[in-house]
């Protein structure tokens, strides 16, 4: 869960590795301060958010949006995903694969090129003979549909929704 949270804020994989380690080390140091009456996930994500903000200040690594309101909304979404019954966070996230199979061909294509093959928008555009702007729009539509699919998927099985 922590890795997915960090990946929702940072593009660079090496930075994700560093931030993961810094977050866990800080959590370990602050473990005596942790209130066991409260859920562990938000506490850990709070530390991770601070680490990301510190990282932003000291490096030029390109980050995704980390405005306070966005961080808060992100935390809520991850918190809701945590409530979905499954053996592990990975198992919950794997539901996304089922949702990807339901995407229309054009949208599934851009997601696969972008995430499975790691192409940039420009490269996807060349591969699909589409403009960069068109690829951007498709990828955003794909994410919207995946989010809705996750929500429907969760609620149809009587589980909490994936969206707040």
């Amino acid at each position, binding site marked *: *869960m922590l*890795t*997915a949270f*960090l*990946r*929702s*804020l940072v*593009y660079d*994989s*090496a930075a994700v*590795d560093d931030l*993961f*380690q810094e977050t*866990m*080390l800080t*959590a*370990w140091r602050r*473990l*005596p301060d942790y209130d066991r009456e409260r859920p562990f996930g938000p506490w850990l994500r709070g530390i991770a958010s601070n680490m990301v903000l510190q990282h*932003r200040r000291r490096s030029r690594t*390109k*980050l*995704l*949006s*980390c*405005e306070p*309101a*966005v961080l*808060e*909304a992100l935390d*809520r*979404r991850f918190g809701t995903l945590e409530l979905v019954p499954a053996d*592990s*966070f*990975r198992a919950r*996230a794997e539901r*996304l*694969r089922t949702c990807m199979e339901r995407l229309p061909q054009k949208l599934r294509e*851009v*997601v696969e090129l*972008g*995430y*499975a*093959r*790691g*192409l*940039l*928008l420009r*490269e*996807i555009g060349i591969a699909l003979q589409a403009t960069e702007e068109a*690829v*951007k729009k498709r*990828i*955003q539509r794909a*994410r*919207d549909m*995946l*989010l809705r699919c*996750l929500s429907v998927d969760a609620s149809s099985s009587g589980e909490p929704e994936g*969206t707040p």
Partner: protein
Amino acid sequence: MTDYRHRPNDLGACDDIGDAERLAAQQFIHGLLAHLHEDDPDRQRARVVGVMDAIRRDDAARSRRMRFPDWRLVASTAAVAMLLVTLIVAGLQTERSALALVRTSIAASAAAGDRAYEMRVTPPGGTDEDEILAGRIDARNSQHFVIDLLTPFGHRIVVGNDDDGPWAIGHDGRTQRFQDDHPRPRWLELSDTVFLLDSVDAMLERLPSQYGLELRAPESLPDGSLCDRISAVSSGPRSPDPQRIELWIDPDTRVVRRMELHWPDDGRAARRGGSGGRRRHADRGDGEYSGPLRPRRDFVRDPNRQPPGETADGTPMALAAPPDPNGLRPGDDGPPPPQFLDRPPDFRGGRLPPPRRMVFERVTVDPFPEGWFSPEIHETETGWSPEWRHRCGDGPRRPRPEP
């Protein structure tokens, strides 16, 4: 493998101002997609191992600053608890690749508690029958261990690591402490070879970065337990470290049961008058493991020469007969005392070859007493002790008695 440098770069930078919910929704799915496609179990495991290393370093540094036993207990417990939680979260127990297995073993060793390994050595150019019992490694983790070694000529060497860092007790019984600017020597020069003085945990931690790993078919140990098998071959530039390492890993606990370090036999031992060059057995790493070999006491080339510290009729000399200031022992005809090497040996052009093989095999022990990893507790026993007669002689082996 996915190229981790790239990512669909359509999402806004940090300073973008927009609808927070919409941006968060996009980033949420982006995070899940990137996690699913890029964070494979090997990568997750590497992160866990990195965290555990960082925690251990942090723990050691803080222990040196704050010397409250209760605090250390709490810290160690927290570290172990966090390890277990992380292992469960990362789902490490299902992976079977060689690298995954080694990394899991590193993490499992850190939480395994007190363990001991017998150390046996086959001298340069020797055969399996020449293997001797040379010492024992007591370990709690990579930062807490004791290597207790008795050389073939009866000199006792003890090295270890505790909360205050590395230390060593030389053949003369003197204790040395080491710091970062003067690290503990990893090599001990004897009269006819050079021993590697590393703990099993430390060797294990070197594998992912310095060795190419191969998962082999599971293999049984003599007690019938089936173990996972790993072969590791040095992948870096030629170094004095073992060229090949064979591992037997407990499939349930993921802790190393047996480790073999192999050096290539370049025939120099034969030229020096040893038994080098002969290979009565197939390379053991490629064959079935047939169980521990009967330990011999020393590297003696003259079979009539009694071990040092022992009288001609075989009775042990009094314990109050440590080596003299020159490292010589009563009845000893003058082998040079063992010397720590400040730098790695040069096995290609140096005057002494490496041993042919070192074997570490786990033995059952009770938890170690308080202070076991500090030098003070080991300073009292010098030389050829009755305990060593049990451990190195023909009698039944027994765990080290509690002091």
